């Protein structure tokens, strides 16, 4: 027997899933931004080395 009937518990469960999903999404988005910044930095260093090498 669940602690709450489904028609009452449904909105709370949905809210909890939404919170977890949003948190993970924000975290992954921040990490993606950091990784793309690292990629840009690697690219700029490569370009610089090409200029110096050429």
């Amino acid at each position, binding site marked *: 027997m669940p602690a709450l009937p489904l028609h009452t518990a449904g909105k*709370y469960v949905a*809210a909890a899933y939404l919170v977890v999903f949003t948190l*993970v999404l924000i*975290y992954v988005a921040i990490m993606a931004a*950091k990784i793309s910044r690292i990629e840009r930095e690697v*690219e*700029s260093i490569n370009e*610089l080395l090409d200029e*110096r090498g050429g």
Partner: protein
Amino acid sequence: MRSYVAIHLSIVLAVGVLITGAIWAKGSWGHWWVWDEPTLVSFLIIFLLYCCYQPLRFSIEDPERQARYAAVFAIAAGAFVPVNFIAVRLSQSFSHPRVLSATGGNMPGSMRLTFLVSLAAVALLYVTLWKLELTSKHASMELKKLRRRLELAYEERPAAGAPAPPVGTVPASPSDR
């Protein structure tokens, strides 16, 4: 660095625990938060303790002292985790029945399977995100070192036919140009 990333990620997930726990409490107890409930307050204390980790770490400049003090703090704060676990077990008021115990607990079989699968999924998510952030931090640190070495190399040995750029002019990223 590994403990720093682990604690950072744990704080993010602990925010989720606090919010979803409050939602559960509202559904089950009719209150978002109960201040005289030891299960909630002990978790909040641990959360606030770990929130102090990063300010403490970055308030120390010497890297060796920073690592040592941060490790001591992390271990001392970790001692509160079993306290929190025991508080949940000892709590009489409000708490749901003990769902996990040596004798099987009070969780129905179908619910137990869902719980264990969810537990494994969250653990895997944690490890994946931890590795991702750790790799990103290492890459960032290596890039900083590489840039510093390049600056030094340009300063010491300018390329033929080109004047050496002064230190600090090697672009950090396209946005810095």
